[in-house]
């Protein structure tokens, strides 16, 4: 068994009487892409908030390379893109670097280098309102990855996009992920998206959430759209659907 990058051990979180996470455990290997899928309101975003250090769990621990996780481990991309209208697109993407104390010039230089691979070249000085939905998501993702965190937490990044744009974004994400070798945790509602992008998919139960099923996706990488016709793809899809139905 490979050394795990992240070990999540027995996380429990309640909001008053409402038990949201109950003794949730799983782990993630270095460079692995793991999707989290589950019924609406089961606690997926809450799980990410705990990982990102925004909320203390009632019980349990998050270990990174065997040590308790700090704020600096996870790059968090929230469900909303949260691009600020008072900043240009470039300055939105440098926000994390500026907060970390990097000089503005250096931060801009570093973020600018990613604009071409993220399909945003030429929009550095635009305002977020001038971007299409897909571009906004890529800008939000750029703002996340430019911080060089070890693990990316993507909370339904494509949830608000139309299905054509969404498919294009999934292919694009598969491509850049392969190029940069990120370790990624992704929340999604979309079974197809989970199978297409992931090495492994975790199915959560309804509240209080536990890992109900783990489905490994054995498909070669990098993957192209044609992979959806692969029998292994269909099998994984069917298995996930069944697991979700049962919950």
């Amino acid at each position, binding site marked *: 068994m490979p050394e795990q990058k992240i070990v999540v051990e027995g996380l429990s979180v309640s909001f008053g009487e409402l038990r949201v996470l109950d003794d949730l455990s799983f782990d993630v290997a270095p460079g692995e892409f793991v999707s989290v899928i589950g019924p609406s309101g089961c606690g997926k975003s809450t799980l990410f*908030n705990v990982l*990102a*250090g*925004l909320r203390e769990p009632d019980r349990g621990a998050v270990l990174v390379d065997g040590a308790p996780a700090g*704020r*600096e481990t*996870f*790059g*968090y991309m*929230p*469900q*909303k893109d*949260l691009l*600020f*209208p*008072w900043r240009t697109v470039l300055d939105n993407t440098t*926000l*994390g670097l*500026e*907060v*970390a104390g990097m000089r503005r010039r250096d931060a801009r230089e570093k973020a600018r280098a990613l604009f071409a691979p993220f399909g945003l070249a030429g929009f550095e000085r635009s*305002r*977020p*309102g001038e971007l299409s939905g897909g571009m906004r998501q890529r800008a939000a993702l750029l703002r996340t990855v430019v*911080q060089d965190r070890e693990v990316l937490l993507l909370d339904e990044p494509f949830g608000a996009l139309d299905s054509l744009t969404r498919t294009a974004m999934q292919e694009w994400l598969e491509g850049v992920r392969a190029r940069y070798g990120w370790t990624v945790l992704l929340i999604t509602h979309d079974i197809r998206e989970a199978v297409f992008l992931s090495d492994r998919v975790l199915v959560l139960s309804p509240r209080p959430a536990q890992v109900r099923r783990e489905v490994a996706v054995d498909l070669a990488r990098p993957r192209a759209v044609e992979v959806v016709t692969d029998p292994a793809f269909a099998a994984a899809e069917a298995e996930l659907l069944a697991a979700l139905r049962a919950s």
Partner: protein
Amino acid sequence: MVHRLLPRLLSPRRLLPPLVIVAALLVTWQVAVTVLDVRPQVLPSPLRVVEQGWAFRDALWANTVPTLQVTAVGFAVSLAVGWVLAIVVDFSPWLRRALVPLLVASQTLPIVAIAPLLIIWFGFGLLPKVVVIALVTFFPIAVGLIEGFAATDREASNLLRSMGGDRWQEFRYVRLPGAMPSFFTALRIGITYAVTGAIFAEYVGARSGLGIFMNQQKNSFRTDLVLAAVVVTAVISVALFGLTFLVQRLLVPWYRRDARA
């Protein structure tokens, strides 16, 4: 930039409707006064107000300048007080609980009763007038800012914290710019009260200014000159109101371009 903004603010489409209404009212007034033969001490005609106002333009101007000065100083103090209070309240929940009820209570003070006392305490100088203006205008500014800061998306705060940001960085990068639209709305409310606040303070006691001018003219039954001073007051207020739009376009140009905020 200004040369592009002014034409839009002063476009005929915006200016024409209120001007038409004002013109209609003035004509009605003029006709009524002429037909009913009202004594000018009771109600002078608009033409007489303009005529006499022009004849006394030196006196009017000499009293407008001190009023403008008082308004500027008073409103500057009010802005400073409003900002300091709003920031303090935003950083400290305890001070929020302590101060917000007091801010509200300050607005229930009957200024009519307080203003003469201020003059007894502070004399006829700048100070009592500045206090009156600040009292009537700091509240909308402070509240507009406090609510603007507090309206920040919780998830935006979370994003900043996930980046490792502290409370000050959250304020600087999210809460402060996010509150600007709310601030400018509050600024417009405040500034419309500022001039009338100055006039009122002068009315109670001053050596010069439009307020004291009105009071003197009223006492000598020069209703036309009182109204001429009222016209000057209105013009100043509208001009200051318009100025806030100009400042807004210059300081927060993003606000109109992306109303989604």
